[in-house]
């Protein structure tokens, strides 16, 4: 009985994410077309689309990771169906509100909603309070879910075991599965940044309700905003990685990965560094003390190191001269790791202060974060979706279709991203609805990006259809 429920809610999550993903990609392509001059949207529409594209993408890939974790977590501990369902309902309410606020209310603050922009009303008056409410609803829903999941883990594992500290001793008596370790590390990070969101929203509400007698500090608000935004964007990738650690070996027909002392060490370090890396968003705010800037650079380097090095190397070693049952699932994982690494290079280059001076807020920024989303995290989650969908339905797998899907994903993704990178190196600003004439390469690059993004959309649609069909079957089956 219980396991049917979790199957069904996971199916619902997957369908929801895929629907919103397709819609947001379409918005993304429209943006690129507009930047290329092929469309002529009013800037207010462009920026509203941009805002909802960013918010939705971050939101859905976060919940996709959480849904995956939640489903697989059942292998180790019982999870709370109620928390899962609550999170789903609040997510749907929050996301629907956000779409109405941006597309009807024309609320266009970009997904980072930097203070004090939400208060400089340039849209429907109700949009600002509604936005604050929607963000609070999402934060609270996800907070409930994360804390509940953490509680279930802690029922079985002590804190030390959940963080795999016993692996620092010679012969650990209890083995912590990597999946539990990474989930735990990530959940603590997620809970932290959701608390940041709560504090941020509280400060916004305080100013909103005080009618001008309380004013926030722009620097503090910017720090909080990126503490939240940067951290959640990174943690959602780790959620995807936890799934990879659990499934990559299994799908390839290999023995499960085991935690070792330096895996434990690497992930424990990751938790610390990921919480201070957000300082790199404020490099160009010279008001931030130099010490913090340097911490930002070092933490950005260190945050990418342990998790990346351990994971990437493990995947290499797991594949190198090893007979593997390749399937769409682990190929998506494998390509996703490659995309993540390449995006990581772009990120480390940009996280270097002396480079950031000429890259900050150019197209280099969307270039690198789209790399480890479009070609990284999304593929991790799609791998899970696909794997999930064939667990409970017929296992007829169409090899040719898989090949087509993968090649189109790679071609489309690579071309789309390359247009961003070249634009960034050409000093083209990000978040411009139309490009000034002096950027001669900007429009052609935007059109190239739009074309390749369309190529990327095709395999997504194929996966959407096949996965959704199976998930609907799961929904209506009674087993």
């Amino acid at each position, binding site marked *: 009985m219980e396991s049917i429920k979790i199957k069904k809610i996971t199916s619902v999550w997957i369908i929801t994410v895929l629907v919103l993903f397709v819609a947001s990609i379409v918005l993304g392509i429209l943006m690129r077309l507009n930047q290329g001059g092929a469309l002529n949207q009013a800037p207010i529409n462009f920026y509203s689309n941009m805002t909802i594209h960013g918010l939705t993408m971050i939101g859905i890939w976060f919940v996709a990771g959480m849904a995956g974790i939640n489903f697989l977590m059942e292998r180790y501990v019982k999870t709370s169906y109620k928390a899962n369902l609550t999170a789903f309902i609040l997510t749907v309410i929050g996301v629907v509100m956000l779409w109405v606020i941006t597309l009807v209310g024309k609320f266009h603050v970009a997904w980072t909603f930097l203070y004090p922009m939400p208060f400089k009303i340039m849209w429907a008056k109700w949009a600002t309070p509604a936005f604050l409410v929607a963000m609070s609803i999402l934060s609270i829903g996800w907070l409930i879910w994360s804390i509940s999941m953490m509680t279930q883990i802690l029922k079985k594992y002590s804190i030390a075991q959940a963080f795999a500290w016993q692996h620092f001793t010679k012969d650990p008596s209890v083995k912590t599965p990597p999946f539990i370790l990474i989930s735990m590390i990530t959940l603590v990070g997620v809970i932290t*940044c959701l608390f940041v969101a709560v504090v941020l929203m509280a400060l916004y509400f305080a100013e909103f309700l005080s009618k001008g007698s309380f004013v926030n500090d722009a620097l503090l608000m910017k720090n909080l905003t990126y503490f939240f935004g940067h951290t959640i964007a990174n943690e959602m990738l780790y959620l995807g990685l936890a799934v990879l650690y659990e499934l990559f070996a299994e799908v390839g027909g290999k023995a499960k990965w085991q935690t070792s002392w330096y895996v434990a060490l690497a992930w424990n370090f990751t938790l610390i560094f990921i919480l201070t890396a957000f300082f790199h968003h404020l490099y160009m705010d010279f008001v931030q003390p130099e010490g913090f800037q340097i911490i930002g650079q070092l933490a950005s380097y260190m945050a990418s190191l342990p998790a990346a090095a351990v994971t990437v190397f493990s995947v290499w070693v797991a594949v190198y001269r090893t007979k593997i049952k390749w399937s769409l699932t682990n190929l998506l994982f494998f390509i996703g790791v490659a995309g993540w690494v390449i995006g990581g290079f772009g990120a480390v280059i940009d996280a270097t202060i002396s480079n950031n001076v000429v890259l900050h807020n150019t197209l280099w920024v969307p270039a690198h974060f789209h790399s480890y989303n479009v070609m990284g995290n999304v593929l991790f989650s799609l791998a899970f979706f696909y794997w999930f969908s064939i667990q409970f339905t017929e296992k007829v797998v169409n090899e040719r279709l898989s090949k087509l899907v993968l090649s189109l994903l790679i071609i489309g993704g690579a071309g789309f991203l390359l247009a961003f990178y070249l634009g960034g190196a050409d000093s083209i600003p990000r978040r411009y609805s139309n490009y000034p004439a002096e950027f001669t390469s900007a429009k052609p690059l935007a059109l190239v990006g739009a074309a390749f993004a369309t190529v990327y959309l095709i395999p997504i649609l194929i996966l959407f259809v096949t996965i959704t069909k199976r998930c609907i079957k799961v929904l209506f089956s009674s087993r």
Partner: protein
Amino acid sequence: MYKSFVFFALIVLLTHSSSAQSFSDAMKEEINIYQKIYDAPLQVAGKPPASFKEFYSQQPFVLALVFTRCVGICSPFLVNLKETIQLQPFEKDFKIIVVSFDPWDTADEMELLARNLGLKSDPKWIFAVTDSIDQMNRSLGFDPVWDSVRMQFDHDALLVGINGDGYITKKLIGLRERNELNQLVASIHNVFSPTYRLPNPNILFSCFNYDPISGKNKPGLGLAFLALPAVMAVGVLLIVSMSVRKRKIL
């Protein structure tokens, strides 16, 4: 389409400027920063004539502008300056030059002022008059207005930092906190701070406050807001663990 932008921008600007408040005084302090001070000749009682250049080429200085007949801010201003400076150990040496902007003042009257303040024999302090008041004032962006009814100057209490090359590095108007004075002194020694805050109605929640002595930003209360969520997360972790594991936390 672009026309509507301009229109829009104008509206935003108009609504904005009506709400902008008391930044103006702070902005006055920005006038003529990094301009050179006019090299006015100076006369100190009982000393050979000199000029600003001879002083700054030896040591950077803080310039205070007063007039001896002032019944207003000048003397509290100087007393306050004296106390703040005496209370404070400064690493690098500098001078304080008090110059009158009143053409009626003589070098002797300035010496009397020094004696009244108990500063006559302090080598740090120099009291002088100049015959190029207008040029000096102009180079400092200082504009006292003579009020012939009250027989007084209407003026700001102005402190100006001059570095070793004769450039104006910072200005302070009015009686100010010790912190800001220290910032002025730091600036004449060419200590560069990449930023500073503008006066803000709410500094309660700011992340950092600039400390000119160390040249660093000191953590403000706002930083607590950055640390708070992490502390809360650890708290939740411990509480949850304690409640589900009956006190066996680890």
